[in-house]
């Protein structure tokens, strides 16, 4: 059995490309109106809760301010991203990846569990046995909160979607709130992205395994089993 299912690997790389393009075009779009508001409306910078910096060309796609082209890319990559989030959730629930690796138990949230995870992870052979509580919480937060929030706030900002799902805009407290949350979630994903890349670079085999699938490490030694009762048939020699 491979460490990473084919569905996980496929989604991982399609999503990687999608979120890089979405993030960098998003920064270009942010430059069009660099103020964030709460509520249904907002256009006056003095009502803003945050004045955003102007993102430099090296951080944006395209590399100069071009709202139309940035939106073209953003709107296009929203398709693989959005369909991908649905796809990976269905796949994770279907193949048990979620239940096995991401679902946390109450004991995973204790400070002791977190400290133990960090200690074990920094030592040699730290990633031998599945996901530790910190990984479960971080990945769970990305899959359960950040990615869906990114998708749903993005939909809520679109006036066409607001035409058939006004409740979605109201759930976030209005269009400008949805736009603010879209921005916050984007930086949340960026933060995860940085940690993810730094940790992956500590061992190039981890990256390779995301292409090949890798091999699932041998499970922990099975607990001792009770002696099997020899099954013998009359006349047949026991154990050959």
């Amino acid at each position, binding site marked *: 059995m491979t460490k990473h299912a084919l569905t996980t690997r496929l989604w991982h790389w399609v999503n990687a490309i999608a979120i890089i393009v979405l993030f960098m075009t998003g920064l270009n779009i942010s430059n069009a109106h660099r103020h964030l508001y709460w509520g249904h*409306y907002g256009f006056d910078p003095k009502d803003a809760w945050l004045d955003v910096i102007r993102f430099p060309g090296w951080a944006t796609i395209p590399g100069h301010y071009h709202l139309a082209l940035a939106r073209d890319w953003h709107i296009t990559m929203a398709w693989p991203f959005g369909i991908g989030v649905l796809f990976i959730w269905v796949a994770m629930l279907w193949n048990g990846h979620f239940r096995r690796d991401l679902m946390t138990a109450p004991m995973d949230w204790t400070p002791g569990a977190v400290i133990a995870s960090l200690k074990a992870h920094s030592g040699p052979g730290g990633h031998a046995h599945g996901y530790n509580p910190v990984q479960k919480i971080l990945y769970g937060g990305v899959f359960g909160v950040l990615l869906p929030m990114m998708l749903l706030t993005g939909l809520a900002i679109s006036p*066409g979607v607001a035409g058939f799902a006004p409740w979605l805009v109201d759930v976030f407290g209005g269009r400008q709130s949805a736009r603010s949350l879209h921005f916050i979630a984007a930086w949340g994903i960026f933060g995860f992205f940085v940690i993810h890349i730094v940790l992956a670079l500590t061992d190039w085999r981890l990256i390779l395994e995301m292409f090949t699938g890798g091999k699932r490490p041998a499970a922990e030694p099975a607990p001792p089993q009770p002696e099997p009762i020899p099954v013998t048939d009359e006349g047949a020699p026991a154990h050959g």
Partner: protein
Amino acid sequence: MVDLPRRSLLAGIAALGASACSKINDSEAAHGLFKAAEDGHRTLHRALAGKQGLAKEFRPDQRSPTFRGNGSVTVADPFYQDQLAKGFPDWKLEVRGLVEKPLALSLAEVKALPQRTQITRHDCVEGWSAIGEWQGVQLGDLLDQAKVKEQAKFIVFRCADTLYGRDYYESIDMVDAYHPQTIIAHSLNGEPLPEKNGAPLRMRIERQLGYKQAKYVKAIEAVTSFAEIGQGGGGFWEDVAGYQWYAGV
């Protein structure tokens, strides 16, 4: 050195990204892809909203205290300025093109027709929003009065303002033209439209972004195609900057 392959891999990916992007942006394939994505959004929105699904309407106390003017906020034309000062007594709204009965209505005639009032949110492509109460005539009513012909596929709005030396115009399809909230508004928050918001008449197309909401409207034209109008993009910003014709995203 374990470092090397991974660094060169990353550098390779970065370089590929950078050069690919500048090439991809201008290619035919990219434009085809963008168009497909835009059409996909429109098709999905229409399928989920139905043709008549309404944009949210707000309570009077939810309006923004003011309503921002953007893009053209003034019209240079001396006739326009003279009319603005006098309250538009000689302003005419034409309904023309593929119609059996072309119309030329004065502002008083427009106000005498059945009215619709709606408090809606205006979303600019830049990201900001404002909420105001609009009053005006449903475009569908006007098109019925003018007996729009079967072969009309799009409605083009001709405007009095110019930007970068070009006439502003916009266009929508017949689904949006006959949407109940698509009105030609003459009032904002109970007052005649201010100049910055498009006096004397502007469009409200509530399920699309602000640049579709043509201001200073002089004429409404029914056409089969907008390929021959302007540069063929279907609107001023579509022509000048490459904005999406379907502005529902």
